[in-house]
């Protein structure tokens, strides 16, 4: 793209390339002219798989939209109509619902891979930021999509989550009425959620393009976390990683199919097969599994004030909301919280332990989020919540004082030393 071609190559391909250099663009992006570190392991498959998930969600969602009715008295029935009457409607819906869960599995693995190998560190901070933006957009999209079937969990999930905004001091109530378009979650809410649920995936596509653009600027990080120094450290994306990604797609689709065909409702809540009723709250409200850790943080925050005096600066309600959003926003600061000059946890013995503890804490919070908020669970939730943020404080100090292991001289030397038997 840097220089204009002066001569036209022969043939149709040459004719097109001379006018629109699309073939060289593809070759430079995902082809033979895009060098990648030669040591990428299978954890690097998940970015491409996430892209596949996004495409599958858009496709199944488009066809579902042809049969769904976004109106409060008809929405629930139209979903059952899709399940019973529409040809392959059950497949479209299960693929879309299971697809949402799978998308989050893949993206969470992708994020934790980045955390383990220090992929957020310079010069990839903006790449990391764009990833967080994608996660936030995914969460908004998934939340609004879950409201559309208009079951009990749809309705009460929408009520609880939109009510989070009522914690904003002063204008909270007006904001919530504005979000609802009324005095409760009702038809206007359903309508706008449908419109936004249709729009956001395309916004995600836009941010994904920026994400990939930022990725290509400095190329992929790698399991050693050291920079590419010579061409010997790389292999071309095509055919090496195109084939490897396709293999990953196959494995992923196999697992995906097991859920779609044999356990399509295992990740959902049976209460959502009861039509929405604004007069009765289900006994136990839980979000979909991928929101559980954040839900636990929301519920575990105590009043913040001076102990034993009754002085409260921030009510537990507002604190919960701040804590929940803060648990994601803090990742924007991670590239600077982590002051280590070594990226990969392979060479950071203390950070490696911290990484696994943090992952365990997220799983613990997820479990707490699925349980009723009383007794032991409340205490466990608060410990888990405290540790979540303590991790980042500890990381500030550890990353600046940790004695790291010696780094290999280069990617190629390391690869040849470990596997070069011929």
């Amino acid at each position, binding site marked *: 793209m840097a220089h204009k071609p002066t001569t036209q190559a022969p043939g149709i391909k040459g004719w097109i390339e001379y006018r629109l250099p699309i073939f060289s663009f593809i070759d430079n992006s995902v082809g033979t002219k895009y060098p990648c570190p030669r040591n990428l392991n299978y954890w690097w498959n998940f970015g491409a798989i996430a892209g596949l998930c996004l495409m599958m969600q858009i496709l199944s969602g488009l066809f579902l939209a042809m049969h769904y009715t976004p109106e409060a008295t008809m929405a629930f029935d139209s979903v059952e109509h899709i399940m019973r009457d529409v040809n392959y409607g059950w497949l479209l819906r299960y693929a879309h619902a299971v697809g949402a869960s799978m998308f989050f599995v893949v993206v969470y693995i992708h994020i934790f891979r980045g955390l383990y190998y220090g992929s957020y560190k310079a010069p990839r901070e903006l790449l990391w930021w764009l990833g967080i933006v994608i996660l936030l957009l995914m969460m908004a999209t998934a939340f609004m999509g879950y409201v559309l079937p208009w079951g009990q969990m749809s309705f009460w999930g929408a009520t609880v989550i939109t009510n989070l905004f009522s914690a904003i001091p002063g204008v909270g109530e007006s904001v919530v009425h504005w979000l609802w378009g009324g005095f409760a979650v009702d038809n206007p809410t359903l309508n706008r959620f449908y419109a936004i649920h249709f729009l956001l995936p395309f916004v995600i596509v836009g941010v994904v393009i920026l994400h990939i653009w930022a990725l290509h600027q400095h190329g992929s990080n790698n399991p050693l976390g050291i920079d590419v120094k010579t061409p010997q450290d790389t292999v071309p994306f095509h055919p090496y990683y195109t084939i490897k990604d396709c293999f990953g797609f196959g494995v992923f689709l196999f697992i995906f199919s097991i859920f779609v065909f044999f356990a399509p409702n295992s990740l959902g809540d049976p209460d959502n097969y009861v039509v929405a009723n604004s007069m009765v709250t289900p006994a136990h409200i839980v979000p979909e599994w991928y929101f559980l850790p954040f839900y636990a943080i929301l*519920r575990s925050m105590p009043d913040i004030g001076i102990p034993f005096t009754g002085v409260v600066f921030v009510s537990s309600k507002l604190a919960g909301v701040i804590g929940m959003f803060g648990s994601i926003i803090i990742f924007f600061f991670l590239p600077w919280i982590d002051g280590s000059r070594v990226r990969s946890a392979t060479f950071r013995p203390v950070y490696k332990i911290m990484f696994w503890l943090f992952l365990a804490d997220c799983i613990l919070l997820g479990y707490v989020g699925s349980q009723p908020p009383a007794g032991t669970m409340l205490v466990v939730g608060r410990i888990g919540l405290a540790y979540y943020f303590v991790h980042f404080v500890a990381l500030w100090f550890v990353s600046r004082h940790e004695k790291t292991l010696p780094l290999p001289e280069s990617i190629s030397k390391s690869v040849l030393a470990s596997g070069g038997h011929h």
Partner: protein
Amino acid sequence: MVLTAGALAAVGAGAVAWPFIHSMNPSADVLALSSIEVDLTPIKEGQTIKVKWRGVPVFIRHRTAADIADARKVPMSELKDPETDDKRVKKGHEQWLVMIGVCTHLGCIPLAGAGDYGAGDGGGWFCPCHGSQYDTAGRIRMGPAPKNLVLPEYSFLNDNRVKIG
């Protein structure tokens, strides 16, 4: 020059944005559903009913003497959102508690007669979502909710008829 043009453009952008933003606010027909009337005669002492008003439930409880006594003896210092029992009901109609049945935490509907603040006879409310508990005057006593259950605007047309809204 650039500054003036920029400022004017910002004002223009704001003026254009407002109709879009305001279109999402409650529409005229939603605002028009303003009031309902409820006949209180069938509600027995110790009974709570739910009626739908503007899309949300309103609790109407016919309080027992024990309910009222229990609500009145609580010292203000024990309350998170201090309010006397007098302020929660209409003078001369102390047996009737009329409240919006929406938890002030995150909007679930509390269950009547559950929780630890019911004077043992089915008063009091418990929110199943996040564990908030309200007493026999609908005041927050435990859990994450910050405020007492909200009182709607209402008036007694006579001893047995109430107008909400």
